[in-house]
């Protein structure tokens, strides 16, 4: 009987992956159909944001709109993009060792230039003529380089010079992430996290607004730093491009997580009173935070179906390592979240095991062989079961092995990415001998305020909003809602937690307590905070 070649298995309601997407290289197809291609642990939150913006900038530079026009037939996007190599600028910023020393030597201008040119060697990586013309004084060149260097992001990683990046404030400040020698994109550090963010934003209902904001605040903003970078680079930097990349696979056409992500992008990019260079850090944090929520929500959907219980995020604010407080509860929930991922992949295979397609194989001739082939097609799982028909494992044995395989912790799994990003955005705290739990740092709290507070809002309304949007539990009210009326800890513990949260907010400059009964959380960078016309006091 001629066997129909099956394609890799998809979850319910999933889009078909783009036709041109090469999936044959993938070793095990169980995480990707649930969450997408790809959530990668070695790509930091900053690099995730950068990747997303690379796509946006690339599209506009090719005279296209930030997001592609909607397709009527719900076909998966297939987007081509690239970023400039800008090798000369990169050399100046990330590789050159001599500029600073020479500039502070106090020598005469001409001498400084010749010393530096000598250091550059026979094949200088920069366009010397252009630089001499643009910066007649060597000191100015040194200042410009020092200035731009201070705009480096994510610098604490000691990465290769071709994986260092600046704040993406304009097209001249973008760099493709490439190998050191051949300058080809190897996706070693930029491995599709940002593409997923891009696809999510594209599929949200706020895509137009977000696109306009990206255009006005970043792409078309004419930042002085961008102008400076362009001056340093000269025109020929755009001639060398690495090969272009393509976006990956995001299974669901719609999801609440996409909307939440887009709302946060819109909120942060709309803060007119904050320079966009400062708002990119919270944007990166929240983008990753939204990915974490997406991971957990998808896992619950696959395991329990829609409407399943999503364990909340209990944020411990007191932050001590003693047994009191919410640390243990928070630790517990983190573990629950992490267990959700292997549960989901397991459920993915289990569902298939119950399917008609598999049941049909169990009783057929050559069941073992058919099973092996089918599992290979559906799950991209290659196993050698030998050629001896008597020694071959049965279909149920095979699928049992597969179920074990998908639950093992692999390196670079979604679970690894979850922990890596949680740590990098400051959502979790780890202490030797104590454990890891959700205890947010100041920067994450700040990001949450910036994205969720417009005009002044009462503290308990803010806590409610954090729960409604992100399932974050800090105080007793939300704990009641999250745990269905059964508080896992004493009421007083949650109240203490809420007070600590209030202290943190006040210390960050986001809270004013007006009386015992009333405290306001406010966002000083939101336009609503100013006084409006019509405000005045009654004359005494």
């Amino acid at each position, binding site marked *: 009987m001629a066997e129909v070649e099956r394609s890799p298995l998809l979850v319910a309601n999933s889009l078909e992956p783009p036709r041109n997407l090469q999936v044959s290289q993938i070793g095990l197809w169980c995480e990707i159909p649930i969450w997408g291609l790809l959530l990668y642990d070695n790509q930091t939150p900053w690099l995730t944001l950068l990747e997303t913006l690379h796509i946006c900038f690339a599209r506009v530079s090719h005279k296209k709109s930030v997001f592609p026009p909607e397709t009527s037939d719900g076909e998966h996007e297939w987007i081509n993009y690239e970023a400039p190599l800008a090798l000369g600028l990169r050399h100046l910023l990330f590789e050159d060792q001599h500029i600073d020393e020479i500039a502070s030597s106090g020598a005469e201008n001409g001498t400084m230039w010749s010393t530096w040119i000598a250091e550059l060697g026979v094949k200088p990586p920069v366009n010397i003529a252009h630089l001499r013309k643009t910066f007649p004084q060597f000191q100015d060149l040194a200042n410009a380089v020092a200035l731009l260097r201070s*705009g480096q992001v994510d610098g604490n990683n000691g990465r290769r010079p071709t994986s260092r990046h600046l704040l993406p404030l304009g097209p001249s400040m973008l760099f493709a992430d490439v190998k050191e020698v051949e300058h080809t994109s190897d996706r070693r550090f930029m491995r599709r996290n940002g593409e997923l963010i891009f696809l999510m934003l594209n599929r949200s209902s706020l895509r137009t607004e977000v696109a306009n904001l990206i255009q006005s605040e970043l792409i078309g903003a004419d930042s002085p730093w961008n102008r400076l970078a362009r001056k340093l680079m000269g025109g020929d930097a755009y001639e060398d491009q690495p090969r272009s990349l393509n976006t990956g696979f995001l299974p669901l056409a719609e999801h609440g997580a996409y909307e939440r992500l887009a709302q946060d992008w819109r909120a942060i990019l709309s803060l007119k009173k904050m320079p966009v260079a400062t708002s990119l850090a919270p944007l990166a944090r929240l983008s990753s935070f939204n990915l974490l929520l997406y991971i957990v929500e998808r896992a619950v959907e696959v395991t329990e179906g829609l409407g399943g219980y999503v364990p909340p995020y209990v944020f411990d604010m007191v932050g001590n390592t003693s047994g009191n407080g919410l640390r243990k509860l928070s630790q517990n929930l983190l573990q629950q979240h992490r267990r959700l991922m292997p549960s989901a992949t397991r459920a993915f295979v289990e569902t298939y095991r119950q399917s008609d397609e598999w049941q049909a194989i169990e009783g057929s001739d050559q069941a073992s062989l058919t099973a092996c082939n089918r599992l290979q097609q559906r799950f991209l799982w290659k196993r050698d079961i030998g050629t001896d028909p008597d020694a071959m494992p049965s279909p149920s044995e095979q699928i049992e092995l597969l179920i074990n395989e998908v639950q093992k912790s692999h390196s670079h799994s979604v679970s690894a990415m979850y922990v890596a990003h949680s740590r990098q955005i400051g959502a979790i705290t780890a202490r030797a001998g104590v454990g890891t739990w959700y205890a947010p740092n100041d920067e994450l709290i700040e990001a949450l305020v910036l994205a969720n507070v417009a005009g002044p*809002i009462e503290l308990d309304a803010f806590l409610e909003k954090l729960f409604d949007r992100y399932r974050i539990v800090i105080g007793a009210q939300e704990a009641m809602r999250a745990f269905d009326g059964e508080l896992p800890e004493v009421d007083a513990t949650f109240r203490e937690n809420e007070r600590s949260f209030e202290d943190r907010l006040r210390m960050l400059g986001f809270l004013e307590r007006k009386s015992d009964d009333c405290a306001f959380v406010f966002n000083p960078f939101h336009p609503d905070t100013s006084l409006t016309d019509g405000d005045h006091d009654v004359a005494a």
Partner: protein
Amino acid sequence: MSACQSSSLVSFLRIFGPSAETDALSDENVRKALAEFGVQPIVTPAPQLEKLKTALCGETPSNVILTGTAGDGKTYHIRQLLLGELNMAPELWPGDAPVLEVSLPSGIPLRVIRDLSELEDDEKDAELAAIIACLKGKRTDVRYLIAANDGQLLRYFRDSTTVGAGAIHAELARMLRSEVSKSALDLVLLNLSRSWSGETVDKIFDAVIDHPDWASSCDGCPGTGVANPCPIRLNQSILRGDDGAGLNFRTRIKDALRVGAANDSHIPIRYLIMLTVNILLGDRQVADDPLLDCDRAKQRAAKGNYELCNPYDNALGLNMPKRQRDANVVFSQLASLGLGEETNNLLDEALTKGEPKALAEEIFATEKMYGERLFAPAHHAYYVTADRSKADEFRGSIATQRRRAFFRMSASHEGMASPWRFTVLHHAGTYLDVIAALTDADANKTFLDQITRRLIKGLNRAYLGMMAEETEKLWLAGTIGRTDDTVGRIATVDAIARATRAQSIKLDMDRGKRRPVLLVRSKSLDEPIEPLELRPLLFEYLLRVDEGSLPSSFSRQCQQEVRQFALITNAAFGDEGDEDDVSSVFVLSLSATGNVDAKTLEV
């Protein structure tokens, strides 16, 4: 001694002291006590009464919402208005109905909700639609006067699903946060906890210290001699300022409260009375009952145990157990000043060695009971006999003397000899001078300019992270964009000048007239820039940085406030709409003399 006799006034005053009952102290309880003890009531001011009358008793009355915390006198204000101006018959007050209706002079009916929390849910809902219509100006045939705590008020509108409630809620939240009383709504919002008045504090002190019944209720008491006077009368005379050291004690308390008000820590009238009563009657012997009565006062006098009723310690509530003190708004506010612990060498030497002589005399010459008399034994034990075992006692004793000195020294001392050096806010004296200068009609401009220069220097140092000496220009220095490091050398906007034709940086009072702000103005901008609110702690921070402290070693909150100000001001200037392509950024560095050198970089 003749048979013990208790002063009825003292018994009456005790009910105002710190105890569990005081929290439940209401208008009604006070009236019962007045009847029981047969004394005259304490006449407390109703500071917002005039505004209330103006709002309601004119030709076109507005709606009024009275808000404030418990003990601010909301009910008192309403009663004064109704029984006074509106001539309501006394027997109708308070009435059984949740909503009272009376007639205003203009003929329009006024619906009075004495306390929003007393209404049942259905009663609240019944009124809500009408209230919304009135506030929006859609109905003018009736007016509302509502008294409610701020949190309660907001929840009333927030929890409602009636159309229009959401918009009212947002507007009220904005008004409460910005502390304005009028807006686009047809409303006068009087916040009793946001009005500072030095006169109110004085009136309350006078009402207690100079209560008409002192003489008559102490009449017949054998009293006590000069050597061991009645501690109550002694404390009274100290607070009144009889002893020749003038009114420093009172003034200093008022100053401390003023500084607290600038820091948004408001003391309701009930607690001001409690403070006064505690100063007079405070006694630290019995934890459950920290106030003197006449019996105990006589015992103290007989045994000479005056250290138990030290008025300077009573002002900080040290006669109460710590937990109770911390939960009490006025004592916890005063405790936050760190009195008794803060000091410097100059002041301590005046206390212990008597040098400089003039200062030591000022502190110890008058009011010997709680000063010299109390301090001498511990001082002698420690310094003369050098008894090591008395070290703890000495520590406690000198802390007491520091507190007393704070309350007794003249405000004219400057620098290290300022009494405020006994607190964590070393520059509070200057802060109060700034407030005085700003509220005076003819402000001392030279003084204000001087302070502005110091603030600018503090800000420059905080932004640059370098010991700059620049006082005439403000550099909004920072990094290109990262949020973690607040210190930087780059400015995208040219320095803002302190006093030129086009720009200015000036001290001004904020809208609520409660604290100074630093106002930046520039002719090139259409919209005004948010001023920097100078709460006492931030003022302290900037002046300390100006004097040489490292910016990052003080307060995280202050750093954040200062950083936010830089970002927002930068954003305001950044929008200046330059049509020219050429623009520059500034790279800042420090010269040998401490001047800020700005290198322009064309971009």
